[in-house]
């Protein structure tokens, strides 16, 4: 118990994977939720039941199953909108993951918009225009913008990262030519929570739009998109006790309406002729084809689950785990933490190196001998690792179902790793 009403033992009963035993009767210690989270029975059962008894295609069907699916799918949109404080449910667009959400926004920019009368100048992008990201981004918030720069001739720029693992906002990275700034709300390697208000101020002064990659924040903190004041927010179901195959783009309605469509196809249209089409209002304009129906419904159940426990309580629990882990890891000889070593503005993601031992070996031995699942490598943030002059790190990341006992297991494991390779 780490905060009033939060009972980790009760929560752990909801997660079937914890009932697994590894050979030798070892328990499974899952410290890789930053990569993808586990799912509670409530989510799994909601999906199973829908698939078995209530499945039909959404929107277009006019029969019992079709209307049950549509109700559940659109109901999930309501839940997600409420969960992140979206001013309107129609601002919630279902994608297949956070990466698609980021690509969707990147594809709204381009020179082709200058052609049509419908082009909104905020999305016009060409040579001389600038896109700003940061050195701590996940590849999914780097590559879409690189591709956009290649398509349009625009320039990609970025904020650096300090030795402490903080965003370095010094220098004039954002200029009058900046059209879009896209940064992580919380780093998936450092755990750093970025100062959104400050970035927003700089961007607004330059007249640029702001996108937040909230893949690592929405699962772990109460997040209110309206209070944040940004223009776009991307996050992903599989990291927030929801299923794979579902992500979310939230955007200001007025901007979503001004954007050209991205994927074309069924459901995103109003009317189609052979030579032209008109498009459905948001959110459907951005949901081409049969959407991830059961996945959205599963995400709705995930949001219900998290809400019932309370995001404040989850945040507090993870905070106490992080404090415990920071203390414990400090005791491991040769361990170098990459990222803030205090609780200040950071989440429960701890990346580190062990002197003389390759992270691949650390991760594999932890798994092999202790059933401790961590992630090793560059965690889809290679530029950040280059910045710190290391090819890879070992990362432990926590979620609501983790315990201090599991952090003890990690530390025991690390000592063993050091013995194996001594």
């Amino acid at each position, binding site marked *: 118990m780490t905060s009033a009403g939060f009972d980790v033992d009760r929560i752990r009963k909801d997660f079937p994977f914890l009932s697994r035993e590894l050979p030798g009767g070892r328990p499974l210690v899952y410290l890789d939720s930053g990569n993808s989270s586990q799912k509670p029975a409530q989510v799994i059962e909601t999906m199973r039941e829908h698939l078995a008894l209530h499945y039909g295609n959404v929107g277009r069907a006019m029969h019992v199953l079709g209307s049950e699916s549509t109700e559940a799918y659109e*109901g999930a949109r309501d839940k997600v909108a409420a969960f992140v404080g979206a001013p309107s449910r129609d601002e919630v667009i279902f994608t297949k993951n956070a990466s698609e959400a980021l690509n969707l926004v990147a594809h709204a920019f381009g020179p082709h918009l200058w052609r049509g009368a419908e082009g909104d100048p905020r999305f016009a992008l060409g040579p001389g225009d600038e896109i700003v990201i940061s050195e701590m981004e996940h590849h999914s918030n780097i590559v879409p913008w690189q591709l956009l720069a290649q398509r349009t001739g625009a320039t990609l720029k970025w904020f650096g990262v300090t030795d402490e693992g903080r965003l370095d906002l010094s220098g004039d990275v954002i200029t009058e030519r900046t059209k879009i700034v896209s940064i992580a709300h919380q780093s998936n390697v450092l755990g750093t929570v970025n100062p959104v208000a400050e970035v927003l101020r700089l961007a607004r002064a330059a007249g640029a739009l702001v996108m937040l990659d909230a893949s690592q924040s929405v699962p772990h903190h109460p997040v209110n998109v309206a209070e944040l004041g940004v223009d776009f927010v991307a996050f992903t179901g599989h990291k927030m006790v929801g299923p794979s195959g579902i992500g979310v783009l939230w955007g200001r309605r007025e901007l979503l309406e001004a954007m050209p469509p991205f994927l074309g196809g069924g459901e995103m249209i109003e009317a189609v002729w052979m030579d032209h089409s008109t498009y459905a209002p948001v959110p459907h304009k951005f949901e081409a084809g049969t959407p991830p129906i059961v996945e959205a419904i599963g995400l709705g159940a995930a949001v219900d689950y998290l809400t019932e426990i309370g995001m404040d309580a989850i945040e507090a629990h993870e905070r106490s785990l992080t404090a415990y882990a920071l203390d414990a890891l400090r005791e491991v000889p040769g361990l170098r933490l990459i990222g803030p070593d205090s609780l200040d503005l950071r989440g429960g993601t701890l990346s580190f190196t062990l002197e003389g031992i390759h992270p691949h070996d650390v991760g594999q031995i932890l798994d092999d001998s202790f059933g401790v699942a961590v992630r090793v490598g560059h965690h889809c943030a290679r530029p950040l690792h280059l910045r710190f002059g290391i090819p890879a790190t070992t990362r432990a990341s926590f979620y609501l179902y983790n315990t201090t006992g599991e952090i003890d297991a990690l530390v025991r494991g690390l000592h063993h790793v050091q013995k194996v390779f001594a």
Partner: protein
Amino acid sequence: MIGESMYQELILEHYKHPQGRGLREPYDAEVHHVNPTCGDEITLRVKVGDSGKIEDVSYDGQGCSISQAAASVLYELTTGSTVEETLSVVDEFTRLMQGRGQVEADEEVLGDAVAFAGVAKFPARVKCALLSWMAYKDAVVRSAR
């Protein structure tokens, strides 16, 4: 639909015996609305009297029974009421239709139009029901210009 049929007797009644159908003179404004997804269309005229009361709503069009019956019910509910009164009925009807079956209908305000409550669960049919009502709202706005 389970339990409650979308095809209330009342809807079929209006469909088979539409009230106020046909385009008539005089009128203050005429609009033509199309539902591009299903091809339903309606031409609708309104005549507002000096007292601010709706004197006539006349219409013609084609579409499914829901869209046809909705126009007939619209005619009955609007004629003889003040513009203001009718607009609050339109608002309530819209709220009901867009409520995805989660919204309780206000019978006081809606009268016969509550028969359409079952339609709200079928997003694809909501537009059928709303076609004439949106056209009406549009026409009233234009007539005031």
